[in-house]
Structures are given as C-alpha cells and as structure tokens.
C-alpha cells in the first residue's frame, strides 16, 4: 500500500470519482449506470474495510491523519478518524451499496442523476465524519444537503416538493447559526495568536485557557452548534421535517436519511459540542436530557397511531435517536459507547426497515396500513426478514439494538435515575408500535384481495435482506469488536467533558451536578486516573498527528 498515507482521502473521494464515469454513459443505458454505481460503492465498502486492520486500539489520537494547507494559513485540509468516526464511515460505506441495490428497478426516470446523487451524498457524508477542520466540516455538511434535496424533490412521492423544501429550510436554518459560531471561534483564536479553523488546535487552545470563553459566550457558541445538530438528529421539538422527508423520499433516500444522515447530528454533538464547550454542555444537560426523554416517549406514541406504515417507521427514529442524545448527555464512558453503538445499530436496523418497506411499496405502491394485512401469506420471506429487523429495532437480545440501548441505559442510570426510568418505558413502547404494526400488516388472513397475488423476494432483494440480517446478528453477538475500538475515544471524551478542576474560571462556578468519575467501560482497562491529563500543546499535537499519519500503515 504505497498510498497508505492518503488512504482516507481515497475513501472520501472514491465515490466522487464514480460520477464522471457515470456521466460518460448514455442516459438510456440504465443497466450500466446501475452496475457502475454498484461497483463503485462496493469497491468503496471493501477499501473502507481496510481501515479496520490499520486502526490501532487504545489510541485516543486521530488516526489516518492527513494534513495540508488549503486556503491561506487558517484553513487546512485536515482529516482523520478515531473510535467515534471509524464505524460511522463503515456504516456509510455499508449502507450505500444497499441503497443502490434497492433502487435497481424502482427508479425509472433520470436514472443517471439519481445514482450520481447517491454517490455525491456518500462522499459528503464520509467527508463530514472525517473532517478535523471546521471549515472543511461545514463544506461537507452543506454538501450533503443538495443531493438529498434533489433526491426527495425529484424521485419522491406525492408531497415531495413540500417535504424537500421543509427538509432543506430546517437544516439550513441550523447550519447558518453553526456557521456564525464557527466564524466566532475563528475570531476568538485570531485574537490570541494566529486564527485557525483546525479542530484539535482550537480544542487544545480552549482546554489550556489560551482562548478563554466567558460563560455566556460559551453558552451561545454551544447553542449555535447544538441547534444545527439537534435539528439534524432530530431532537424534539425540531423533528417535524423528519416524518415528511422520510415518508416522501424514495426508498434509497429514506435509507440514507435514517441510516446515516441523522447520525451527522449526534456525531457533531460528540465531536464538537461536548469537547469544545464542556461547561455549557453540563449547564444545559438537564434541559437537553428532558427533551431527549420527551422525544423517546413522544416519538414512540406518535409512531404507534400512524396510519401510514412508512411514517410510522420514520417516527421511530425520533424515539431511538432520543436514546442516543440521552446517552451522550450522561457523560459516562459506557453511555458514550452505547450512544456510538446505538448510532450504528439504528443505521442498520432502521435502514433495514425502510429497505423492507420499499420492497412492499414496489409491489403495492402504497404505505397505508389498512391496505395491507396477512402479507406473510403471499410473501413469507420478506415479512420474516422484516420481523427479524423489527425485533432488532425493538432491542431484542442478542441483536444489535439491545447492546446500544442497554449500554445507554446503564450509563444513564449512573448519571440520573429518573431519566433511566423514563427511558426504559421507551423500550416497552417500541415493542408496542413495532409488533402491533407488524400484526396488522403481516399476520392473519389476507384482507385486501390485491395482496393475494404479490410475489415474494427476488434474488436481488434476498441479497439485501440477508446482508442486513447478518449485520444485525454480527453486531449483536460480536459487540466487543466494536466497543473495544471505541474505548480510547470515549475515555478521552469523558476526560474532556469532566469539568471539575479542568479549567478554573472564577466567573463560571461549576454546575451543581458534576460528572460521575469515569467508570471503566465495557471491559475497559481501568484508566490511570480521572483527572484531566495535561494534553500536549496545540502545535505538538499537530506534529504528533502528522507523524502518526506517516507511521500509519
């Protein structure tokens, strides 16, 4: 691997390389357009797997780092991954081929444009997960919106224009505030030396008090970042774009939206909000935790009574992502690990639910639950796999959903008993909406005559379903393979968000509730101590990072 030091860049931009290849094909050549898109995304998945052997466990610093000057002295092309972004990158490369496969026959118009949009989204999403420069991050963040806007607006269902506009306005509103916060941070660092958009540098400057933030400023900056991410997650009450966008998007769009795009929000909170503004995070943790709890229960209740099957599954995301937010704002190693695991697991499970729904839609062209009933009779394979995926989504042990939810609940319980009690009710409610809807759709006699003649899964659909089911089972059984690689990062995050003694700021009295001492993670070696370890100065860190990149195989 001669290009080892540019491995990550290669992963980021490979899908984009597929775009000119697709452009060279004739518009009507649907077969080859699909094939090229699939091959590109499969190659992308395979090469992204090579990140795993190269990834060193127990290493809290960023790995596969690439660093170059880009615009002026302030903006750098700085990318790298750690235990948080590694699996999100893999999730993206895993789901994209499935999204392409599920659009094989259901997309008839503008086929070329559709697959180009998917590939551009893939590059943009991976870019978001690996960017270590705020400017670069914002660029990729915005880049995810445009193809998704077209995907919903062009290839969506009946109310697609409304849903697409709502989606983009909601998200843009949040990202504009984030842009202001990014510029503000840059100016703050500019006032104390050379201004930079570099995340590790800014983080070190904040931790060492080189940039000192008055509590109000920190709160405002935190809120500006957080709002952008909260809309994306989505946290109650910023969620109403989600049911519309998910329901109106084509199947591939829903898979990408629910599978990966929602995690851009939770990822952003863990990458930026917590380590940069730990005081503000602790000050607002109570409000955010309550909103997350409302989201868990509210999303579940509203999902239960939806007459539209796809809308039902869309609302479950509000509930499940509430768990992730709750885990993040419990500030414990185990809940951080649970949050990351739940992000991945939700991506696979809910992505799988949407893939199953897409197969039903391809046959019946409706999502109304009353149009179904007894579907297990004409299509046993699809409905059996759908049940399996639904069970993983409602956190049945030993499937993947259980691990994430369980880790989160353990962590939340350490931080706040009452939260854990309310959150657990979400687990019960998820059983209600998923099993009740499954009962009405799949079990019993066929109630609508049209459904009697539906065909069961084709070979292509079986590949999709089996892949998802295997991933679900693997994540459930082999969860230590995942959590072990997150440990160093989550331990580090716990240290960074620990606020006692981290920064003596006379004007900012520490909030009454302080984070509990870092518990040992899921099988983690006991960390030496819970005090803030003096991080290397900013410049030294950069040097470390760049040398690490060269050493990296």
């Amino acid at each position, binding site marked *: 691997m001669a290009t080892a030091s540019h491995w990550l860049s290669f992963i980021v931009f490979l899908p984009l390389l597929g775009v000119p290849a697709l452009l060279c094909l004739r518009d009507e050549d649907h077969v080859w357009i699909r094939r090229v898109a699939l091959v590109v995304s499969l190659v992308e998945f395979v090469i992204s797997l090579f990140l795993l052997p190269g990834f060193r466990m127990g290493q809290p610093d960023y790995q596969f780092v690439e660093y170059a000057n880009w615009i002026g002295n302030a903006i750098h092309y700085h990318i790298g991954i750690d235990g948080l972004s590694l699996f999100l990158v893999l999730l993206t490369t895993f789901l994209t081929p499935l999204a392409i496969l599920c659009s094989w026959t259901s997309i008839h118009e503008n086929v070329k444009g559709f697959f180009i949009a998917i590939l551009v989204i893939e590059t943009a999403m991976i870019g978001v997960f690996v960017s270590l420069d705020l400017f670069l991050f914002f660029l990729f963040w915005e880049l995810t919106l445009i193809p998704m806007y077209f995907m919903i607006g062009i290839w969506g269902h009946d109310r697609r224009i409304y849903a697409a506009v*709502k989606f983009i*306005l*909601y998200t843009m509103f949040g990202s504009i505030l984030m842009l202001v916060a990014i510029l503000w941070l840059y100016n703050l660092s500019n006032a104390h030396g050379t201004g930079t958009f570099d995340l590790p540098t800014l983080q070190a400057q904040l931790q060492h008090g080189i940039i000192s933030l008055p509590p109000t400023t920190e709160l405002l900056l935190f809120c500006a970042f957080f709002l952008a991410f909260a809309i994306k997650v989505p946290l109650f*009450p910023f*969620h*109403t774009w989600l049911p519309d966008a998910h329901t109106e998007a084509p199947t591939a769009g829903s898979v990408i939206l629910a599978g990966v795009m929602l995690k851009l929000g939770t990822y952003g909170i863990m990458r930026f909000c917590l380590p940069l503004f730990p005081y503000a995070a602790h000050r607002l943790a109570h409000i955010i935790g309550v909103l997350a709890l409302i989201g868990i229960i*509210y999303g579940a*209740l*509203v999902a*239960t*009574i*939806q007459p539209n099957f796809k809308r039902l599954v869309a609302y479950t995301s509000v509930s499940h992502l509430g768990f992730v937010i709750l885990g993040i704002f419990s500030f414990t190693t185990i809940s951080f690990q649970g949050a990351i695991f739940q992000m991945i697991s939700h991506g696979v499970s809910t992505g799988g639910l949407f893939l199953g729904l897409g197969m039903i839609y391809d046959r019946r062209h409706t999502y109304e639950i009353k149009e179904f009933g007894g579907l297990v009779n004409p299509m046993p394979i699809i409905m059996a796999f759908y049940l399996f995926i639904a069970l993983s989504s409602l956190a049945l042990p030993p499937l993947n959903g259980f691990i994430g939810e369980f880790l989160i609940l353990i962590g939340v319980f350490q931080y706040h008993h009452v939260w854990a009690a309310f959150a657990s009710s979400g687990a019960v409610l998820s059983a209600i909406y998923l099993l009740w809807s499954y009962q009405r759709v799949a079990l019993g006699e066929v109630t609508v005559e049209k459904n009697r003649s539906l065909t069961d899964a084709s070979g292509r659909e079986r590949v999709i379903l089996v892949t998802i089911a295997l991933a679900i089972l693997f994540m459930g059984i082999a969860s230590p393979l995942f959590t072990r690689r997150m440990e160093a990062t989550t331990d580090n995050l716990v240290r960074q968000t620990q606020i006692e003694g981290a920064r003596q700021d006379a004007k900012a009295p520490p909030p009454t509730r302080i984070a509990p001492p870092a518990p040992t993670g899921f099988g983690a070696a006991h960390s030496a101590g819970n005090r803030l370890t003096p991080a290397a100065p900013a410049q030294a860190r950069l040097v470390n990072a760049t040398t690490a990149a060269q050493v990296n195989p």
Partner: protein
Amino acid sequence: MMDLVHALTGMPVIIALLGLLIAWWFYIKSPETPKKLAQSVRGLYTLVLHKYYIDELYNTVIVQPLLWISTNVLWRVIDEGAIDGTVNGIGRGMRESGAHMRQIQSGNARSYATWVVIGAVGVTVLMLGIWEMVR
C-alpha cells in the same frame, strides 16, 4: 417453625389435589354439573368467562385513552398544529409580507425618488449612530 413450612408447602398441594378432584368431578363423574352451575350462578360464571374483564378494563382505561391522546393531542395538536403550524406560519408570513412590500415597486419614477431619499436619510442616520457607538 416446621409447622409453618408444612402449612406453606402443604397448602398448594391440597389446592392442587382439590383442583384435580373438581376436574374429575366436572369432566368425568358428572359432565352436566358445569352447565347447571353456570345457570345457577350466572353472574360469577360470566365474570370468570371474561377473565374478570381485565382485558376490557385495560383497554378502556389505558389503551384507548393513550391512543386517543397520541392521535388527537400529540400528533394533531402538537406535531401538526403547534410545531408545523409555526414553521409553515413563518413561511406564509414571509410570503405575505413580501406581497405587501412589493407594492413599493410601483413603476412610478417619482415615487422611486422619494424612496431613494428616505433610504438615504435612513442609512445616514444609521451610519452616524454606529459611528457614535464605535467612538
């Protein structure tokens, strides 16, 4: 102490044996007894037949109210009414204020001159104000 243990363990055994006896009585000895019993104590019979109406009670007290609240309060009022209403309302407000604002652009050159003067005065006042603040 042993007596208590015997009483506690003995009781279920006796009850189980009683059950066996009753079952033998109802199903083998005289199968017509249950029907007669059902007729003589009709109230008790229907109560037991409907499992003490626990399912019905649960359905009326918990399930239906929860579904009703979820549909009519959480979904219709909060989700579609309050949140979406606000979001869509802002959009509608923008469109409507835009529709009013464009009346200014009347195509009448003399009215434009007036607007230019008003604008110039406004900008001047604003600049002076900012200048004062900065100084």
